[in-house]
């Protein structure tokens, strides 16, 4: 049992005629070609198929990981957008609180007071309070 391969060469490889067939022992080939044992034929097929299937597998894996990357990028982008909005709101709240803290307030005070006649008396009062720094 033998495998006979003849592949006519062509300037355009896509037009090459593929002739790879199984022939019985003693077969006389009408043309020049390559001779291979059955085991070699199986090895050739195994190599061709394995490389193709592995390649397809890695291409598929690349596409799956690319999709995962795109999904992560989209979700992270949305999360960052929400974070920016939230930080902006928080920053605005702090600014508002700071401005509010600088407004004048009303203060109550109490303490001793020196009077013109030389006496010291207790006094209480209400007044405006300004934050200087």
């Amino acid at each position, binding site marked *: *049992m033998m*495998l006979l*391969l003849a*592949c006519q060469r062509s300037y355009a*490889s*896509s037009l*090459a005629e*593929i*002739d*790879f*067939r*199984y022939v019985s022992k003693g077969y006389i080939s009408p043309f020049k070609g390559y001779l291979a044992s*059955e085991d070699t*034929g*199986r090895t*050739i*097929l*195994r190599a*061709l*198929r*394995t490389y*193709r*299937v*592995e390649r397809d*597998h*890695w291409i598929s*894996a690349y596409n*799956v*990981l690319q999709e*995962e990357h795109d*999904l*992560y990028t989209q*979700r*992270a982008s949305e*999360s*960052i957008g*929400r*974070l920016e909005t*939230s*930080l902006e*709101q*928080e920053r605005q*709240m*702090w600014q*508002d*609180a700071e401005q509010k803290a600088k407004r004048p307030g009303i203060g109550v005070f109490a303490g001793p007071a020196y009077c013109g006649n030389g006496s010291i008396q207790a006094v209480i009062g209400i007044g405006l309070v300004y934050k200087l720094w």
Partner: protein
Amino acid sequence: MPSPIVNTDMAIEELKDELAASQRRIEELDKTIREEAGKIRKQEHVYIDGLDPNDVALGVSEELRIFLSGD
């Protein structure tokens, strides 16, 4: 001073969670992909050993046609 906005903390946690989840998914995919890739040679060996001689010849012809057609 205003109390911290819960939304900001949530957004940060959300971002951290998303990153961690993505890393987990990628690690799982990587593991699965490598495991499957490791099985291909053995699967092809078993498949081709089961073919009769004519099918082997047809298989080689088909693979060469796929190669020449550029998929």
